[in-house]
């Protein structure tokens, strides 16, 4: 049963309703072997699509999700960000970063610059292993390499630590690299494929909401634009009363379209993060951030 997107148009989104839906400026299908995968062209087309669709939104502001397109919501968000509820988690993350593991080593032994100001480089393609490594995955690998149990990917300590690391990168521009390696290009392309593939009982793709309908409502939520959507992660949602990671949001989005979520950090999720982060290159890191 194909569900329909309910659209409630507030005055702030009335102008957007006039825009035609679904006109993509670029080809949204997986490249055939004879087609050249061109991430740079993708990223430019992706950015151009949003900038054209929302001419009043400053490029950097896209990272603020629904707040970039709804003044009433923005005012509430600014009030909350004056003294945000994730303040406590930031302190927790900072303490985690400097606390030695049982073997005496710290995260600084795994991360460049001690883990400070490096978030914008994640995910990256690990050419030795031939896979995409996200920040969350890198954190648990660091722990396991030093004899510590891995953290749960979705919340609590993982959220606190990624929040602090994002915080130290605030303002730095997303800087994802795709090496000239067919495996890296294939991972990027797989992430793109996942993004545009419909799934779940509601038969939505990520694009259905975040490319076709940003700023509009789905039930009571206002949809964020896909451009820069990961730059604000992890997010403190009033709904959760807590911080949640990229893993948490990916799994919950899958559940929301009534699909079966993948395990956190599965290949498709890592590739999805790779694609989404790359096409948001050049936009500032704003995480952690409050959301409804």
């Amino acid at each position, binding site marked *: 049963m194909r569900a329909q997107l309910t659209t409630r148009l507030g005055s702030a989104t009335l102008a957007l309703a006039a825009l035609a839906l679904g006109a993509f400026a670029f080809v949204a299908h997986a490249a055939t072997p004879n087609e050249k995968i061109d991430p740079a062209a993708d990223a430019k087309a992706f950015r151009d699509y949003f900038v054209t669709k929302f001419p009043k939104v400053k490029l950097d502001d896209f990272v603020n999700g629904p707040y970039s397109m709804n003044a009433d919501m923005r005012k*509430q968000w600014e009030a*909350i960000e004056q003294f945000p509820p994730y303040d406590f988690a930031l302190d927790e993350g900072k303490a985690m970063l400097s606390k030695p593991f049982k073997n005496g080593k710290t995260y600084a032994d795994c991360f460049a610059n001690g883990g400070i100001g490096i978030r914008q480089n994640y995910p990256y393609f690990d050419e030795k292993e031939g896979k995409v490594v996200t920040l969350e995955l890198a954190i648990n690998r660091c722990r396991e390499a030093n004899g510590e149990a891995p953290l749960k990917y979705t919340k609590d300590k993982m959220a606190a630590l990624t929040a602090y690391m994002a915080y130290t990168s605030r303002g730095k521009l997303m800087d994802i690299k795709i090496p000239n390696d067919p495996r890296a290009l294939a991972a990027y392309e797989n992430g793109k494929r996942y993004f545009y593939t419909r799934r779940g009982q509601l038969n939505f793709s990520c694009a259905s909401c975040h490319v076709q309908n940003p700023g509009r409502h789905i039930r009571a939520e206002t949809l964020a634009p896909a451009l820069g959507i990961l730059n604000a992660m992890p997010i403190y949602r009033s709904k959760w009363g807590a911080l949640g990671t990229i893993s948490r949001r990916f799994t919950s989005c899958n559940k929301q379209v009534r699909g079966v979520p993948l395990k956190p950090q599965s290949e498709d999720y890592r590739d999805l993060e790779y694609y989404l982060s790359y096409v948001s290159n050049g936009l500032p890191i704003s995480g952690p951030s409050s959301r409804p």
Partner: protein
Amino acid sequence: MTTDNGFWATRRLVLQGAGLVALAGFGNIAFEAAPAQAAVSDKYPAKAFTLKGDDTAIKALYGKTVEVSDKVSLDAPEIAENGAVVPISATTTLPNVTSISFMVSENPNALAAYYRIPEGTMPEVANRLKMAKTTKVTAIVEAGGKLYSATKEVKVTIGGCGG
């Protein structure tokens, strides 16, 4: 195993940190007067916090009537992004303000917060409140012994009581 129904405050003495001692009796909390100067003892208006509907809460808290005043400014969103955390603030140009309270009409209990404003403190306060559903929100300012209010309607699509 008994469940801890917090409305029945336990009669436990808890010592923490700076050594503040609070004796929690049933429904009433009074801080001990500070040693140097006797601070006004603030009784927690427990009953007022349990009442449904603005009128009953106002009656219990103040025992006076309220008049609408354009000298009271209430800042509230048109549509709450999430009813669990709604930034609400109030300010007033009225003189001799002694308290500011907030009522959320459609909440299970209308009184959300009640601030005593001593002399020397500005008559304005900002806080974050939960709203169960679309509701009127009222700021009540006590000035010169009389009550003045401002009301706004806040639409709530995502309820703040965990529903």
